[in-house]
């Protein structure tokens, strides 16, 4: 299965299991979504549970909040994360604050699904990775799977979480990422990172921890392969859930290696890397052998051309690994 099929599988499974689940968004029904993630749902579950909406992100997200307060489990799709901003107010002002401001009496349990990231030459309005804009808002969980297995398990876990989850789908690997996905029900716990490649540092043999997620995970792996040829081992952590972040797993790895690189597509300044580096400084200061490094997007809008220079691909990660190892 690829990522698209795995997400589709999770949605189908949960819609069968839980009659409260309602999918809504632009062209999610008859068309099956621009990336075909919701394909077949409308045929199976009909108009009431798979709702084609007009072009109205504030409307989609706002009504989803009301539905959730009433006890439904809405799964709004925003066609591209870049289009979420007309509905950002609903997320920031209402969705994120609901449980806290109702003294715990209400929560707007829902999963907002949206594709993120570059790699399809979409330019400034179809490529952004706005995770830090949501992580910064207290009250939201943020998830980003990197493979079909995790996508299904994390989505099912998100759908059963009592609170709102932003589910970011890395569109660059929607179809490129393939893997075995178990039939039937299983979950991948939110808030748990995964070590996808292990490394040991030894005297005279430095190792580097790389923190990545989504599509850039594969770039980190590719860079690590190259680094190995140069004698540097890398331990790679796939964060999977960006918030709440698995600081224990991160700290354990950084304490072991003493060197860390964060990779993300979003612009560097105030990107999630900044928070990760701050957490690492707080937790692992005395274990650090080198300054933490961020390999990220540039502090500009996302360009149409030069996309492969803008993205923190393996060719930009590798020099950072070498430098960090040599520091």
């Amino acid at each position: 299965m690829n990522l698209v099929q795995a997400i589709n599988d999770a949605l189908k499974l949960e819609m069968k299991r839980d009659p409260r689940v309602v999918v809504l968004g632009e062209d999610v029904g008859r068309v099956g979504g621009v990336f075909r993630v919701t394909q077949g749902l409308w045929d199976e579950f009909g108009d009431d549970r798979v709702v084609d909406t007009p072009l109205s992100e504030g409307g989609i997200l706002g009504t989803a909040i009301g539905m959730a307060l009433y006890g439904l489990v809405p799964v709004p799709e925003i066609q591209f994360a870049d289009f979420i901003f007309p509905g950002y107010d609903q997320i920031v002002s209402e969705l994120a604050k609901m449980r806290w401001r109702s003294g715990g009496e209400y929560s707007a349990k829902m999963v907002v699904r949206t594709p993120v990231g570059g790699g399809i030459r979409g330019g400034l309005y179809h490529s952004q990775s706005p995770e830090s804009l949501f992580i910064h808002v207290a009250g939201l969980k943020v998830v980003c799977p990197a493979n079909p297995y995790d996508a299904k398990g994390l989505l099912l876990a998100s759908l059963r979480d009592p609170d709102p989850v932003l589910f970011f789908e890395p569109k660059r690997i929607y179809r490129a990422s393939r893997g075995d996905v178990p039939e039937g029900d299983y979950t991948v716990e939110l808030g748990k990172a995964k070590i996808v490649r292990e490394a040991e540092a030894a005297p005279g043999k430095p190792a580097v921890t790389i923190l990545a997620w989504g599509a850039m995970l594969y770039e980190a792996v590719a860079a690590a392969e190259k680094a190995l040829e140069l004698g540097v081992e890398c331990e790679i952590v796939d964060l999977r859930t960006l918030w709440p972040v698995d600081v224990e797993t991160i700290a354990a790895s950084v304490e072991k290696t003493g060197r860390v690189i964060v990779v993300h597509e979003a612009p560097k300044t105030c990107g999630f890397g900044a928070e990760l580096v701050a957490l690492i400084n707080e937790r692992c200061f005395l274990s650090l052998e080198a300054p933490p490094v961020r390999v990220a997007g540039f502090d500009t809008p996302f360009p149409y051309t030069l996309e492969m220079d803008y993205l923190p691909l393996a060719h930009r990660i590798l020099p950072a690994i070498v430098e960090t190892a040599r520091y």
Partner: protein
Amino acid sequence: MSQSDTQQIPQQESPLTRPSGQLDHLADLYRQMLLIRRVEEEAARAYAQGKIGGFLHLYIGQEAVAVGSIAALKPEDYVVTTYRDHGVALAKGMSARALMAELFGKATGCSKGLGGSMHMFDAQTNMLGGYGIVGGHIPLAAGVAFASKYRADGRVTLCYFGEGAVSIGGFHEGVSLAALWKLPIVFICENNEYSMGTPLSRSMSVEDVSMKALGYGIDRDRFFVEDVLDVEQRIGEAVQRAREMSLPTLVEVRTYRFRGHSMSDPAKYRTQQELEERKKKDPLFRARVKLVDEGYGESRLKALEEAIEAEVADAVEFANTSPEPDPSLLESTTYDGPFAA
């Protein structure tokens, strides 16, 4: 679109007289429409060859809207439009070279290749941008009109958007402010009956977009595009109202796109028969027929068409041979280096 729908729309006669030398004028409008059509057909070919990437939303079928409406403007007037922006950009006078090079992501493009198809800009012709966030540009366009009123420079702003945009807040906020402040702007809703895969009937409770003007207390108009000269005349009335009385108008122009929403859309949500019916009413084709019927002369038309072919071939060649922007362009921040004020 059923027959009865067609009949509901009042076909007004305009008091404005058409420009003199009407046949030459029509030939010029035909030339502009053909340029847009041919540039886009070549862009589609380049897309298939992988020279253009990402998203390419073609305007094919709707050319008469941009060309007719901009014909009613003065050169110093402003236009603001959506991501389906090639037609408006060319009609406003941007060169086919700058447009094609932008599509190819080349340094010689109107935005140095950094914007691409959806984000054309041209300061020389007061083309204030194609915008990819649907509805986001509508309040912005009202602000442009505010500035011309503030400066009392008599300029008018045309703001284009699809019928999909009418469901989002930006439309209502922009029109509401323009109405309250009596701004010199014409809101042109290009209602092509589809918002991606969603037909009109499933995207709006009232299919007549122009009715939205009533709630804001501004003038409205609504018509089907058949003849580019009609577009010029009908939009011309709204432009005159904006220029002379500083009053906004909402105009719903019923049109149709012949291609999918973008290059990746096979448009399975509509029938081939519907498409063929609409192609028969192609305003570009009708303009040519009218020119022939009224005696413009086949040989003059041929010459005009050959000139367009040459212009388009030159634009493609220019885009092909232009350099890519240098990656160092990314190192400066948004306000530095080549982007500095």
